[in-house]
């Protein structure tokens, strides 16, 4: 990757980030009405706060809404840099705290699903590429491609209905057993794994096909290369040829894919978590949507979007390190 490409990638990253920030900033300001009328009508029952003109003006200048938009945008940016995402209406605490409370659960299932689907996809892909003249390959391919067409949250609903409702093997909601007393750390880890199993399974299945197809196709391309023939001609065993020579070269695109996958899974986790009522930021987003908790919705968008963008940026950089051809 030359200097120019790197600049182009970073330029695109910054531009995309700015678009997201601008959307986040301007959307609420484009809405009809003003924040004071909603705050006052939100109060239920008798004590509706009617603001006098003086109070209104005081609050408008207090929140800086009388200043020009570019200045407001700068204030918004500087608040963001300081980690101030506003106050959640429902939780009555800073948005950043609500997110930090729920983000670890999302990260947990996303990372587990990434690892699981990468390992399983590479294994199945290798198996399929080696047996590509047999019926088993065709069967596996048709089956997995069919799987890939079902969106992850519908797949999650089916998995929940089969394993949680019909077979009653796994819990229907939550990340830990409520009010549980653990005798050891191992016990606690077991409980967390037990609750995370179905969401992780769903997310992994949704990404499995991509990794599988990529591994299979690159392996098939690589296996026609001259150095594979050379390796065979040297008298190396079939196993060594496949693992040391073919797979090693075929894994490069898989690494790139894994990075993008983390980003996609963050997006997919929003819906899958809601299906399993898993307390990550996805479920928080659903309850924020239902409760019209706009600052929280915006904060979650920002965190998810920025992490997806960062993953893609890191992938671009890591790829340059891994592939010497891309570096020059």
């Amino acid at each position, binding site marked *: 990757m030359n200097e120019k490409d790197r600049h182009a990638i970073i330029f695109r990253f910054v531009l995309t980030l700015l678009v997201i920030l601008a959307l986040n900033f301007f959307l609420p300001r484009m809405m009809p009405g003003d924040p004071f009328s909603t705050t006052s009508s939100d109060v239920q029952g008798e004590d509706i706060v009617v603001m006098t003109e003086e109070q209104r003006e005081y609050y408008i200048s207090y929140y800086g809404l009388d200043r020009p938009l570019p200045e407001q945008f700068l204030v918004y940016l500087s608040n963001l840099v300081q980690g101030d995402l506003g106050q959640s209406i429902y939780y009555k605490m800073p948005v950043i705290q609500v997110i930090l409370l729920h983000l670890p659960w999302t990260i947990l299932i996303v990372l587990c699903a990434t690892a699981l689907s990468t390992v399983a996809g590479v294994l199945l892909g290798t198996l399929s590429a080696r047996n590509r003249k047999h019926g088993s390959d065709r069967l596996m391919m048709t089956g997995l491609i069919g799987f890939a067409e079902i*969106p992850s*949250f519908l797949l999650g609903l089916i998995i929940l209905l089969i394993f949680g*409702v019909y077979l009653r093997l796994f819990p229907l909601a939550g990340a830990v057993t409520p009010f549980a007393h653990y005798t050891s750390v191992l016990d606690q880890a077991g409980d967390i794994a037990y609750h995370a199993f179905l969401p992780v399974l769903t997310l992994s299945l949704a990404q499995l096909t991509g990794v599988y197809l990529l591994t299979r196709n690159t392996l098939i391309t690589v296996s026609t290369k001259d150095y594979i023939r050379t390796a065979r001609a040297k008298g190396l065993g079939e196993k060594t040829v496949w693992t040391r020579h073919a797979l090693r070269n075929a894994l490069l695109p898989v690494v790139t894919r894994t990075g993008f996958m983390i980003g996609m899974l963050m997006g997919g986790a929003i819906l899958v978590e809601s*299906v399993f009522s898993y307390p990550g930021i996805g479920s928080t987003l*659903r309850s924020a949507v239902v409760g019209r908790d706009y600052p929280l919705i915006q904060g979650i968008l920002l965190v998810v979007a920025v992490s997806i963008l960062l993953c893609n940026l890191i992938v671009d950089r890591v790829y340059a390190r891994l592939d010497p051809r891309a570096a020059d």
Partner: protein
Amino acid sequence: MTTRFISYTQNLQILSFFRDMFYHLGKTFSRFSTEGKIGICGVSLIILIAVFAPLLSGYPPEKITGKSLEPPSAAHLLGTDELGMDIWAQICYGARMSIFIGLAVACIAGLGGGALGILAGYLGGAADQLLMRTVDVLMALPSFPLLVVISAFMGPSIANVIVILVFFSWAKPARISRSQTLSIKSNTYITAARNFGAGPCYLVRRHILPEVLPILFVLIISITSYAIIAETGLAFLGLGDPTSKSWGMMLHYATGFRSIYFTPFWQWWLLPPLFALIFLLLCLAFISRDLEQVLDPRLRKNGGA
């Protein structure tokens, strides 16, 4: 006499046009794989259900026509939901919703994006640069989280959902039709045609469109499934049009019902929209996979642009 003669030949022309069309359609159909044929039949079935929903449903979908949460019976084929509305009727009318949103988004985004792409590719220069940078940014944006936020702020209505989905899906057709236009433009026969005095309109109509349209058609089908999935996802989160009975809204109400998993209600309330959606999406996927190979063998070689 002459007028009758003309109308007679016109009739013949129209007849032969239809005969050719059916012939081509039949030929195309026979080139599909078994899965592709299943896909076409399945999608046609759902379109028929959507079109004849008032005849098939038996009940209006938004009227209370039975007791709350009745199991399936002769009166209510798939039972009723918690308000006593017929579920089979909701499935029929929900098909309208999904098909309409999917096709509307896909046609606007596919044809509009395609037109922009052809224009940019044909004109080149600053317009092209501007469009491509916009497309770059749009394709880098994480679409689902943004969809959620924008539709949360714009308020739930079908028109808003369509506008937002179009906004997020025109980039791909624009990029692909631009690159196709560029590669066609560099051919010598275009230079030859231009030397013979062909104008831009003629070149686009005669040389560029026939090459780009098949690819756009494949893209339109994949955008249709994207739009259906996105609409369902939004509705599932509670961002659908509350007055509409789309399949996503049915999932939203059913999964939002307290203790649905501890009662047998999910069997007739949750399963029908779930299976309907999966069936429709699988059929669309079969069709687009086959179309890629039937209409454009080059896509197979390039691995999808």
